């Protein structure tokens, strides 16, 4: 065993011992639920009862209807370990990170399949082709006047053709739905991008070059509008590659580069800001929900 491995074994050992000690002493990571009896009657009058579990605060654990939730407590521990597994990439690629990655890719893809099936395939495809069946089984709330729409066979056929991509032969079959997809996107985007991102943006740049406020000339606002106009034109000049960037055009393009650099500098800062807030949220989960080191929401006051 080399020195590095020994160090890591010691670190992990101490960490695990510390966690075990803290978990035994404080119950950290424990999740509590409040059991709520749900009573419901069907349209035929038949009575149904089941129990729903709502989140409860650990400080309420002495109350009679509040109990420790094993699945949710286990979930917090799993989530914490998965978080640490993902963070382990900071020390380089390692088996723990690869395992975490494999689990998440698998579950995410599975999740997407379930969502696609229940949110769209059932109500929008099956529900149109066989409304009675879907109403009796998965969507009793479907409109009662929903009739069979045979036109829905077209998207069904397109879906099956798309899924044909998985077959070892006949790859050309999936080109039909792909062509539909691309054609529709092209038609849709042509108009909307032209309107919102070209016409409207040109309109947004047409600003008063001498701003009057309360009957008086406003030099700051005027200067600002002039700067905005100059910055847009200069940046566009930089992107105009069909004209040589020399003379006035070259100077405009140079100014455009400067505007772009400032834009990217601001974008960089905003990106950093976003990443830090995400990191803060993850650490808050570890410190609050799992380790019980902080309690910003006063969920454990008095424990």
């Amino acid at each position, binding site marked *: 065993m080399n020195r590095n491995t020994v160090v890591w074994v010691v670190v992990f050992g101490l960490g695990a011992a510390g966690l075990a000690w803290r978990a035994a002493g404080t119950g950290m990571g424990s999740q509590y639920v409040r059991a709520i009896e749900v009573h419901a009657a069907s349209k035929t009058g038949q009575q149904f009862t089941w129990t729903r579990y709502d989140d409860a605060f650990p400080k309420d654990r002495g109350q009679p209807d509040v109990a420790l939730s094993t699945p949710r407590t286990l979930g917090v521990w799993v989530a914490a370990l998965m978080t640490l597994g993902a963070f382990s990439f*900071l*020390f380089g690629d390692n088996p723990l990170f690869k395992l975490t990655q494999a689990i998440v890719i698998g579950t*995410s893809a599975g*999740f*997407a399949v379930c*969502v*696609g099936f229940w*949110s*769209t395939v059932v*109500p*929008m495809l099956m*529900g149109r082709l066989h409304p009675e069946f879907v109403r009796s089984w*998965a*969507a*009793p*709330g*479907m*409109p*009662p006047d*929903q009739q069979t729409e045979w036109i829905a066979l077209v998207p069904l056929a397109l879906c099956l053709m798309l899924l044909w991509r998985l077959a070892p032969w006949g790859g050309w079959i999936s080109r039909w739905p792909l062509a539909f997809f691309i054609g*529709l996107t092209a038609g*849709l*985007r042509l108009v*909307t*991008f032209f*309107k*919102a*991102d070209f016409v*409207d*943006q040109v*309109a*947004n740049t047409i600003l008063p070059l001498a701003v009057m406020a309360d009957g008086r000339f406003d030099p700051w606002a005027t200067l600002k509008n002039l700067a905005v106009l100059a910055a847009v034109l200069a940046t566009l000049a930089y992107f105009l590659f069909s004209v040589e960037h020399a003379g006035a055009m070259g100077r405009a393009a140079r100014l455009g580069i400067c505007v772009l650099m400032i*834009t990217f500098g*601001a*974008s960089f*800062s*905003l*990106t*950093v*800001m*976003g990443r*830090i*807030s*995400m*990191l*803060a*949220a*993850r*650490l*808050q989960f570890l*410190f609050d929900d799992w380790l019980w*080191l*902080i309690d*910003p*929401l*006063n969920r454990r006051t008095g424990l």
Partner: protein
Amino acid sequence: MIPGWLKNLDRRWIFLLMFLAVSLPQLFGVSFPERPSRKVLDVFDAIDGLAEGSRVLMAFDFDPASEGELSPMASAFTRHCCEKKLKLYFMTLWERGPPMVQKALDIIASEHPSMTYGTDFVNLGFKPGLEGVIRNAFSNLHVDFKTDQAGNSLHDIALTRELKSLREMDLLICIGSGSPGPKEWVQYGAAPNAMRMVAGVTGVQAPQLLPYVPRQLVGLLAAIKSAAEYEQALIDRYPQLARVDQAKEGLRRMGPQLVAHVLMVLLIVSGNLVYFLGGQSGDAP
């Protein structure tokens, strides 16, 4: 002049510094005061100026990846709309978005128990189809939406029974972190239909949305800073929210945010000092 260890500093030391910069303020509960800026107040006023009972679309187009950044905004918007007694229509275009919407519904259930599902708010759920869903929702909502997230017919829900399309909304609110998100809601919803819209976005996406302000977008909240300012504006207007710990998530986050930003500035400055004063090595990130 510059010590060798600094020139070839192991990046794990920088990771450790970043970890400490974000974790210590959280552990010690450090926070700083915020004052709402004009741009945040533009968004605030767009909602605050709506009459009671106005219809508002709440599009939550984000997932856990950006939840840390956008959740405080989404919660603040929800609280504001509830205080104003607006009619809320929730939906998402992201397959991992429904739990984000659920968190807003949980806020309504716990802080505004008098609001009733179906008459005060409705969850239209997730629909795949990217901008196609937006396009159809503004043309005819019932083409893509037959039921709500819970499977109830839209014809049986008071808020949606008479609703033909999203053109009948008084305001569009979109909280998003990518595509489809606020940009698509502007392109396919607000711009072609000349509707009022405000958005809350991640820092990464904010520059993309800036050109739409103020004509296509009445206002824009960018990153956690704007969320914190919005929370402060909300507390200033509705002082009872000062007692709700959950309503100050963004404000709490500004503590670690400040320390980490200062660290970033120090890293940029010291990196350049090392580069210019100590020869030109250690360029690999």
